[in-house]
């Protein structure tokens, strides 16, 4: 062997030895020095926490009848993370899935794409790390195909899940009150403490509106979890640890399904009748409240929708329809979010204000057809004069001019256009005491506050609108002038007035205010509460729906708080006097026609009509009532926007609700002895369907 070969063989010896030493050194580092770290990583690699979603609690009425419950559905979900790991992005799997489910590949792709401002529904609004349901209520045979052939469907799961169901007991839907569920967003998921429902467990939903949102924490329950051992394909090989989920509490509400159903059908009929009579009747609301403590017995809102459309992905058309103006925005509860001028129903506050301002409760006042407020004549409805009358009669015939006078004279005492330092504004103060212009505090999200236009509001509004008003004052309305010069001149005069003195609390403002017109806005709920205060002798109750949270066996988790009710600073005698006036409205006053033939012996109902004039629109129809007069227990208020007069549209709806509650000669009453059940119901009447 030549020396060069020998030498190079020795070099090769050394080289090979060195390489093997490198391997052993590296092996030592990995296994002995860093072994603990890799052991931990390996443990995480091998186990997966499956969160077992809790069954959401039901929403029950006062008798324990389910308004919202759950049904079991076979839900097929797709895990985006798992799909993205597949070579083709999961395309082959989705195509197979589409074949099994009998839907198009494109429709599945649509349902699992993530929502964004540019991506229209159907799309996934929840967290991208959750499995996305692509079909619910799947035929068990098809679901079995997916579960049995998991190797063909990596990333696809079929699971029995509880989905929301709406049984509509006694025709009670109340979707705006009950609210709906939507997939939780990633941000909400991050914020939520405790166990997060992710991974293979299905979808985490969150209440997005109504009671579902308000009592989400009570209804949600506590998810359990299972720490399972998995292999690299995610196949479960065993269970390491388990904690069972706690079913969410059932929310017992004060809603009575029977009354709710009656309220919804009465509202529907009122709107249909108003439309037949040529009114637009674009929306409406009905409130039935316990006058003694503010419990909400029924809340109906129109237009309405079927909340079942939220279950399992919503199409863009359905979603647009729910949000859109075209279909009247059915998601909005007109009871708590609708704001309308209350018109004559507002006079209960104005009478109390006038009496506190010094006018004799038992005095006699002239009710001319027209009353001059400053330079402008303000008229009664259809400019009808009624001669001299007391305040009782003023309510019965709904005289406006008496209230114009009270308001105008008080305005003059406050200094008129040159107000003194602390003007008394008696009607504004009283309206606030009655709860107008502020949220009632009902246990529902997104309540509107209504509007009490006072001096401060006028000023702020003037500042906000000044620029456009002053521009119009200068340039006039050339577009309008082309077709209607007199109207253009009128508009220009108003713009000029608003531009120069819009900040002022003018005589006209206070006159409009006294009869619930002008810029006054109230929600039907606020009006119901004000009438409850008149009915119960002066307590301003806090409306509430949630009574208690109970377990599935009916035992109590917690009673929901009943906030204290502030007292009105109004002499009970005045309220009694007002009740007397309202009691005659239904018998010989503005609502006598609507209540003709009504069995006042069963229940003596008192009420007040309201017909609000809305600029450029049809009148808002109101009727606010309470009963029985001798010992008031319930308040029923109806409102139909663009529905005509209070007497013609709202009053008949209210009458039919009273008849449903107390019964007629041909109809069994919903109430037993004029009472709703007190105390908590037993276990839910209608259980989760299996």
């Amino acid at each position, binding site marked *: 062997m030549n020396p060069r070969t020998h030498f190079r*063989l020795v070099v090769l010896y050394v080289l090979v030895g060195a390489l093997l030493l*490198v391997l052993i050194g590296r092996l030592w580092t*990995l*296994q002995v020095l860093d072994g603990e770290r*890799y052991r931990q990583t390996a443990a995480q690699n091998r186990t997966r926490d499956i969160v077992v979603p809790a069954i959401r609690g039901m929403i029950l009425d006062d008798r324990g009848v389910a308004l919202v419950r759950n049904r079991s559905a076979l839900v097929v979900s797709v895990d985006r993370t798992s799909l993205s790991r597949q070579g083709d992005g999961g395309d082959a799997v989705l195509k197979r899935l589409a074949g099994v489910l009998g839907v198009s590949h494109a429709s599945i792709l649509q349902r699992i794409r993530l929502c964004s401002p540019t991506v229209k529904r159907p799309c996934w609004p929840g967290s991208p790390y959750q499995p996305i349901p692509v079909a619910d209520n799947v035929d068990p045979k098809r679901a079995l195909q997916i579960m049995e052939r998991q190797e063909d469907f990596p990333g696809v799961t079929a699971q029995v899940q509880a989905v929301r169901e709406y049984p509509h007991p006694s025709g009670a839907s109340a979707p705006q009150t009950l609210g709906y569920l939507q997939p939780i967003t990633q941000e909400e998921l991050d914020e939520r403490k405790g166990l997060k429902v992710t991974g293979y467990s299905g979808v985490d939903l969150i209440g997005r509106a109504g009671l579902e949102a308000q009592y989400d924490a009570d209804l949600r329950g506590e998810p359990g979890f299972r720490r399972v051992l998995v*292999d690299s394909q995610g196949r479960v090989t065993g269970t390491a640890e388990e904690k069972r989920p706690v079913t969410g509490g059932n929310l017992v509400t004060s809603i009575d399904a029977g009354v709710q159903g009656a309220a919804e059908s009465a509202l529907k009929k009122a709107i249909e009748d108003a439309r037949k009579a040529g009114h637009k009747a674009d929306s409406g609301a009905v409130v039935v409240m316990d006058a003694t403590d503010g419990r909400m017995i029924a809340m109906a809102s129109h237009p309405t929708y079927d909340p079942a459309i939220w279950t399992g992905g919503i199409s863009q058309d359905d979603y647009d329809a729910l949000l859109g103006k075209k279909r009247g925005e059915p998601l909005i509860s007109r009871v708590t979010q609708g704001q309308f001028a209350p018109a004559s129903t507002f006079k209960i506050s104005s009478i109390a204000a006038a009496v506190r301002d010094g006018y004799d409760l038992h005095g006699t006042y002239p009710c001319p057809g027209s009353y001059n407020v400053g330079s402008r004549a303000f008229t009664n409805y259809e400019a009808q004069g009624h001669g001299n009358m007391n305040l009782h009669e003023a309510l019965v015939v709904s005289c406006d001019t008496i209230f114009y006078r009270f308001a105008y004279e008080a305005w003059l005492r406050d200094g008129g256009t040159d107000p003194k330092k602390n003007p008394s504004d008696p009607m504004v103060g009283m309206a606030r005491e009655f709860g107008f212009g502020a949220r009632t505090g009902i246990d529902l999200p997104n309540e509107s506050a209504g509007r009490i236009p006072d001096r401060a509001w006028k000023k702020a509004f003037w500042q906000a609108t000044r620029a456009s008003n002053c521009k119009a004052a200068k340039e006039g309305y050339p577009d309008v002038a082309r077709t209607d010069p007199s109207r253009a001149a009128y508009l220009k005069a108003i713009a000029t007035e608003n531009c120069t003195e819009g900040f002022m609390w003018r005589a006209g403002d206070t006159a409009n205010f006294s009869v619930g017109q002008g810029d006054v806005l109230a929600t039907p709920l606020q009006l119901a509460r004000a009438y409850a205060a008149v009915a119960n002798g002066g307590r301003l109750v806090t409306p509430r729906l949630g009574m208690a949270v109970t377990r599935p066996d009916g035992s109590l988790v917690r009673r929901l708080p009943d906030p204290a009710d502030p007292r009105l600073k109004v002499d009970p005698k005045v309220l009694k006097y007002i009740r007397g006036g309202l009691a005659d409205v239904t018998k010989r006053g503005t609502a006598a026609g609507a209540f003709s033939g009504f069995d006042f012996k069963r229940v003596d109902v008192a009420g007040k009509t309201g017909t609000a004039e809305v600029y450029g629109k049809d009148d808002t129809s109101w009727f606010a009532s309470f009963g029985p007069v001798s010992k008031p227990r319930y308040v029923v208020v109806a409102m139909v926007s663009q529905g005509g007069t209070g007497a013609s549209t709202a009053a008949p709806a209210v009458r039919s609700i009273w008849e449903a509650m107390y019964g007629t000669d041909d109809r069994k009453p919903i109430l037993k002895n004029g009472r709703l059940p007190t105390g908590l119901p037993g276990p839910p009447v209608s259980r989760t369907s299996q």
Partner: protein
Amino acid sequence: MNRLKGYRGPGPWRGRAAGLRRLDWTLILIVLVLSVAGAVLVRSATFQLMIEQGKDPESYLKRHILNLLIGFVLGGLVTVLDYRLLRAYVPILYAVACVGLVAVLTPLGSTINGSHSWIVLGGGFQVQPSEFAKVGLVVLLAMILGEPRDGEIGPGRRDVLLALALAGLPAVLILMQPDLGTTLVFGAVVLGMLAVSGARKRWLAGLVAGGGAAATAAWAFGVLKPYQIARFTAFLDPSADPRGAGYNAQQARIAIGSGGAFGKGLFEGEQTGGHFVPEQQTDFIFTVAGEELGFAGGAAIIVLLGIVLWRGLRIALQAADLFGTLVATGVVCWLAFQTFENVGMTLGIMPITGLPLPFVSYGGSATFANMIAFGLLQAVHVRRRAFD
């Protein structure tokens, strides 16, 4: 044995009994131990998957044992064959290997794990010609570079160029499969055999520089497949794409690292049982040893392979002629590079390529080729120089 009767080589050859005594028994023992260890590890890597798939849990083990038996027979045949007679067959061997390598590039070939390296024979049998090409390469280069020379200390320019050209053709064919790992094995074998044959340093330097330039060019001109680039970037930063190219590397390291000093016990590896590491019975067999037998087991396998290489180099030093030295050198370079690359990639110090661990991994063609190489070492050893 009749064909060996006229043999007049430097080593005495006194029939079967004497021949058996001249065998390298240490090498045989070590290869046997490695084969048994490999069989056990192959079973560990596969039995749970087989159970899950409702198949015979020992099916991989049985096939592996069959492969080993065939391999030992092949190795034995090569041992008793006078390796110098191989020279006569080298051109045929080379031609067959090249035809096989061309065949896999035609529709006859099948793609398994991204490489178009297989010819499926039917009946569940498949052949990987590149494994046998390694054998062909070693013998071919030994023949060209080991020709008796007068006075010259190394091979002449003509011989070197011929060797490079003849090695280059199959290397390019293998690279086209694409099988980067085997191409690199070819490079290591060529370099090692040229060096030991006594070729001038400038040839060696030129070869290294040429290889570097080719790699740079391949990178720059996009000859590499995207997955190869991905594997390489994943090697530099395994956490960059933990679900894609970096997945194997990361899972391999987790499996080995979690084994600790003494492992989790044979057949007890949770990472192995959960099939977290892909290709675990073939290219990633070392992770099974790492997880279940720990540092003790992993280091033992490296040491055993080290002994094989040491015996191989010893055989090269004691060979009767330059041809024998070069055959042994080629086998050592082949096995050494493949060991370093295979274990190194599971430990994250080498990029991931598809190379089996010699004598341990599952796989028919690789087992046969390794056993033939083992037979070549024994054949050279049997006919070593008289002193020892």
